[in-house]
């Protein structure tokens, strides 16, 4: 059941209806039933994998919490500091053992399901070993997302950030929550649980209508913009060997817009449904293409993933024994500081690349961003000095515009690795993009022979302008709150215009099969 399908809209409407019509004490049951129904629709064969992660993370959390409770008791009985230290060390070791077993199950499942094919492919190539043809592993729906949520839950308990959940039902509700299980945002249990008030969530017409508005905006982004651009981008990338210069650059720029409209559109759809249910999902986008630097871009794009990597990979690596050892033994303080800042960045980006997919494209994509981030850390002081010497004013609009354009161009180059069908294709596209111009491909009617005719092309550009305008407005105000303050006639006019745009201008493809979301595959 894809998030942009009519079936999902109908399903969401039924869930919201039952959620508020039935007595509030049944809300949790309605949600859990909806979660199970939604996941079963995705494929009943995926259930054992999800169940294994769910059970393993829940019971590990509980047993670690029990160890810490016992630790508290033992510490209260100790009076000598050395005894306290020993108790802490023993308890930490016990908790670590539980954590390791749980990680073997949770991460093992992700690794086996997602990366077996990739590993076999490389082993076949390296050692010329033959594996059975047509070998493929099951990749459970949303495994990359729910695995990360489960890891964060177990680690937060291990690091004593909050105690384990006692109710399996409540934890299952979080991990299987249908709006975030397939494409995120990667939720955190403490934030989710805080919203599930024991007395239930009361119906609020404004909140439900604002959720519907967000859902509609998400559908517009997905069906009107992303799926329209996908036609052009797919055609150019499928025949990339035939083109050079500007048309490849144009397709890459449009792909950058497509992936933004696609992924943020999906997040708007699920956030809208969740908002209607009274549960706010974590913010996943904050107008990333207005970023002035690459680190800022990654704080504004797929925020929940960036936060996850920061909290569970970047910081642990930064304070790891290995990094500390290098710092301690180094005679050069600047080197020690740079090493401790750069190694975690490298590790984070390698894993980010691999997380996105089992392919060398994504590994190179991760390395590309690791290199940019590391260069920006190393040369930050030089950059500051250079800016002061050149008398550049950070507040100047022209300077900000230059920074935003620079960031967008760097992102576009990275997108080639993301979109191309294989690493070889990505390298050919980049080579062809910069080794010719071929203006005639875009300055003639040829431009309209790649799936989008003149009208559709113009409409795509107008839609992008609308998206850009909305993003600018959202930087300054909450459009939905502003809309709420307007008269009812105006509000309904806007709503009908949105519905009209989605129905009439949406790309539904032959036989009404909208293309799936890009991030669904991860």
């Amino acid at each position: 059941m894809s998030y942009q399908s009519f079936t999902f809209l109908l399903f969401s409407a039924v869930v919201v209806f039952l959620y508020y019509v039935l007595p509030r004490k049944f809300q949790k049951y309605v949600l859990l039933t909806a979660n199970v129904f939604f996941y079963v629709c995705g494929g009943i064969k995926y259930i054992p994998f999800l169940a294994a992660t769910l059970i393993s993370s829940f019971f590990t959390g509980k047993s670690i919490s029990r160890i810490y409770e016992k630790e508290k008791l033992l510490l209260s009985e100790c009076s000598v500091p050395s005894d306290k230290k020993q108790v802490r060390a023993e308890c930490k070791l016990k908790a670590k053992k539980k954590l390791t077993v749980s990680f073997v199950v949770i991460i093992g499942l992700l690794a086996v399901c997602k990366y077996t094919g990739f590993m076999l492919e490389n082993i076949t190539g390296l050692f010329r070993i033959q594996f059975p043809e047509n070998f493929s592993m099951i990749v459970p729906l949303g495994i990359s997302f729910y695995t990360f949520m489960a890891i964060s839950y177990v680690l937060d308990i291990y690091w004593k950030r909050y105690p384990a959940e006692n109710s399996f039902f409540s934890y299952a509700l979080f991990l299987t929550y249908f709006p975030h299980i397939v494409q995120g945002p990667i939720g955190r249990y403490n934030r989710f649980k805080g919203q599930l008030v024991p007395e239930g969530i009361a119906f609020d017409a404004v909140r439900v209508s604002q959720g519907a508005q967000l859902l509609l905006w998400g559908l517009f982004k997905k069906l009107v913009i992303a799926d329209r651009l996908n036609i052009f981008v797919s055609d150019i990338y499928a025949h990339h060997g035939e083109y050079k210069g500007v048309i490849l650059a144009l397709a890459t720029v449009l792909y950058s817009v497509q992936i933004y409209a696609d992924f943020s559109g999906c997040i708007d759809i699920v956030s809208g449904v969740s908002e209607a249910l009274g549960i706010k999902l974590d913010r996943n986008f904050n107008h990333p293409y207005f970023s002035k630097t690459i680190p800022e871009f990654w704080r504004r794009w797929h925020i929940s993933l960036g936060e996850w990597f920061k909290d569970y990979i970047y910081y642990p690596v930064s304070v790891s024994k290995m990094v500390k050892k290098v710092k301690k033994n180094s005679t050069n303080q600047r080197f020690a500081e740079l090493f401790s800042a750069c190694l975690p960045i490298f590790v984070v980006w390698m894993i980010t690349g691999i997380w996105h997919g089992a392919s060398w494209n994504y590994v190179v994509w991760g390395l590309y961003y690791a290199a940019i981030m590391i260069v920006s850390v190393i040369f930050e002081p030089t950059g500051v000095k250079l800016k002061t010497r050149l008398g550049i004013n950070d507040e100047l609009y022209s300077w900000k515009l230059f920074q935003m354009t620079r960031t967008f161009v760097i992102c576009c180059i990275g997108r080639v690795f993301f979109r191309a069908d294989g690493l070889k294709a990505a390298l050919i596209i980049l080579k062809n993009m910069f080794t010719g111009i071929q203006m005639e491909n875009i300055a003639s009617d040829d431009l309209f022979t790649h799936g989008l005719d003149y009208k559709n092309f113009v409409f795509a550009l107008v839609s992008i302008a609308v998206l850009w305008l909305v993003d600018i407005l959202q930087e300054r105000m909450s459009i939905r709150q502003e809309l709420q303050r307007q008269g009812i006639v105006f509000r309904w006019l806007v709503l009908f215009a949105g519905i009209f745009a989605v129905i009439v201008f949406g790309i539904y493809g032959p036989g009404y099969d909208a293309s799936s979301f890009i991030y669904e595959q991860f």
Partner: protein
Amino acid sequence: MNELKALLEEMYPNIDFDKEKNLYDDGIIDSVHVVTIIARIEEAFDIAVTMEYIQPSYFQSVDTMWEMVEELM
């Protein structure tokens, strides 16, 4: 606490540590700064900052960072 404040002022002379009470949430410092601050704090106070303490709430101001140092000493 004055020792910690002096250390931070030496590291980041452009930040007014008396005024700023939401260093992390306001984007004045980011994760790279946090890691650098941890390294300096560990060295200056001979402590080991564990993962329990690496949370935004401990890096919002000199006061919250001092609270962490005191708990770890």
